[in-house]
């Protein structure tokens, strides 16, 4: 039995701000940009929410399915730390606007930046179990940013958007190594979203937990899989990317611990095995639980895959839970993902000035606040939309009516 990712896409908004502009606008120390390794961050607009991000990521994937294939989507899981309601899932809206079959299970999961990988593994196990031959599952990691100047150096690293991962028996993008995984979880308060308008974070607690979990996950992976060598088993690595510099530190740590390589000598290995996965994350920022799948997109679009390659993937979510797993990619992965034109999508985002960015924040920070009746004036942002090149229809949030979110398709 094979199972894994049949199709993959990301949606990272229609606007971005250069990280340097954000540093200068906030008066942050630009000397710290070196270790951040970030160039831009995606910025949501006030008519974008977890539903629109999810649908806009998944629609190109769903549109490429034959009707008979679409009918076989039996499981829809949204993974988000940007929930809209204590009861009603983001997935319920997404199911509607993607036109998925009524015979589909619909559910939402939460575990900070890790939850999508838990969902992917559950979906892979469902497909691989053979209890419903030919079934497909759609996992969508979707989030919005609730960050402003209070976030300090986290602000330039915070992204927004969604990753859509279609799981099935014909894994054209990533054949998951079934049974090859390692986990590590324990309770910690490293970052959280206690209310719908702000995040809290303890940066050292979180970064240290990310790195400790990586070591422990890899130890667990190694205990389950024979003859694993961190330096040689994985042709490439794609990791959850809070910021690209963090992944570089994580790679150095594992090379030090499992390959006996001092940091100064790890650079070549980093450039070869890790750097291709960081191009997109450094243009977007932290995509929460979609981050590792954005890194995978980046890897597939930037690394030579002709002979096939094994990828080690690492997912970490505050709180905390984490996983190291692996899979195979090849030329089909590159062909499948090329159809999504992720690079064009990112290049087509409108560049915001710091003043434009700061002007959007008050409305963006209200995105998740429940309001009985609300109207979002999409036309007010035409000046920004006119400068974006999306070349497709996008779902936009037009407000709420009796707490029910309302949406429309907009041609951009």
């Amino acid at each position, binding site marked *: 039995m094979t199972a894994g990712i049949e199709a993959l896409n990301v949606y990272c908004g229609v606007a971005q701000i250069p990280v340097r502009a954000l540093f200068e606008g906030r008066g942050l120390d630009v000397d710290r940009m070196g*270790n951040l390794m970030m160039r831009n961050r995606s910025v949501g607009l006030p008519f974008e929410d977890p539903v629109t991000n999810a649908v806009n990521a998944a629609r190109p994937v769903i549109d490429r399915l034959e009707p008979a294939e679409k009918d076989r989507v039996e499981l829809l899981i949204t993974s988000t730390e940007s929930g809209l309601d204590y009861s009603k899932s983001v997935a319920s809206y997404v199911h509607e606007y993607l036109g998925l079959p009524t015979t589909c299970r619909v559910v939402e999961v939460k575990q900070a930046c890790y939850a999508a990988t838990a969902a992917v593994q559950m979906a892979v196990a469902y497909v691989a179990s053979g209890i419903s031959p030919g079934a497909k599952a759609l996992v969508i990691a979707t989030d919005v940013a609730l960050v402003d100047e209070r976030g300090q*150096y986290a602000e330039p690293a915070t992204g927004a958007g969604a990753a859509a991962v279609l799981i099935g028996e014909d894994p054209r993008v990533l054949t998951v190594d079934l049974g090859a995984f390692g986990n590590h979880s324990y309770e*910690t308060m490293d970052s959280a979203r206690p209310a719908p308008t702000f995040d809290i974070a303890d940066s*050292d607690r979180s970064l240290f937990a990310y790195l400790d979990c990586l070591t422990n996950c890899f130890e667990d992976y190694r205990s389950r899989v024979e003859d694993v060598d961190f330096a040689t088993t994985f042709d490439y690595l794609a990791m959850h990317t809070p910021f690209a510099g963090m992944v570089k*530190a994580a790679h*150095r*740590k594992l090379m030090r611990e499992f390959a006996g390589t001092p*940091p100064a000598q790890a650079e070549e290995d980093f450039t070869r095995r890790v750097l291709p996965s960081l191009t997109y994350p450094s243009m977007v920022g932290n995509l929460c639980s979609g981050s590792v799948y954005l890194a995978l997109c980046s890897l597939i679009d930037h690394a030579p895959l002709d002979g096939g390659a094994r990828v080690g993937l690492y997912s970490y979510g505050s709180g905390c839970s984490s996983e190291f797993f692996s899979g195979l990619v090849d030329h089909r992965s590159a062909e499948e993902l090329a159809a999504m034109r992720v690079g064009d999508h990112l290049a087509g985002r409108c560049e915001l000035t710091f003043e434009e960015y700061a002007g959007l924040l008050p409305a963006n920070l209200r995105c998740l606040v429940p309001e009985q009746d609300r109207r979002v004036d999409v036309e007010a942002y035409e000046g920004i939309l006119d400068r974006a090149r999306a070349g497709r229809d996008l779902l936009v949030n037009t407000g709420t009516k009796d707490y029910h979110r309302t949406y429309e398709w907009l041609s951009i």
Partner: protein
Amino acid sequence: MTMRDDVELVVHQQIAEILPSARISGDLHLKDLGADSVDRVEILLGVLDRLGLRAPLSDFRDVPNVDALVDVLAERVS
């Protein structure tokens, strides 16, 4: 030299390697010496390596300053 002196030397050497222009003072936090989060990780991992210790980074997250870091590490070495 005591064991603590040896550990202090290693800590100061590692800080100097990551932050060449830092003026090290034992009562300051690594942040106050100009270390960002990645620098702090590299300092801790480098010190653990030089001392031949294996420990979770999380064990050091609440250490208030360089002297306290030396104390915690000296305890583990002994």
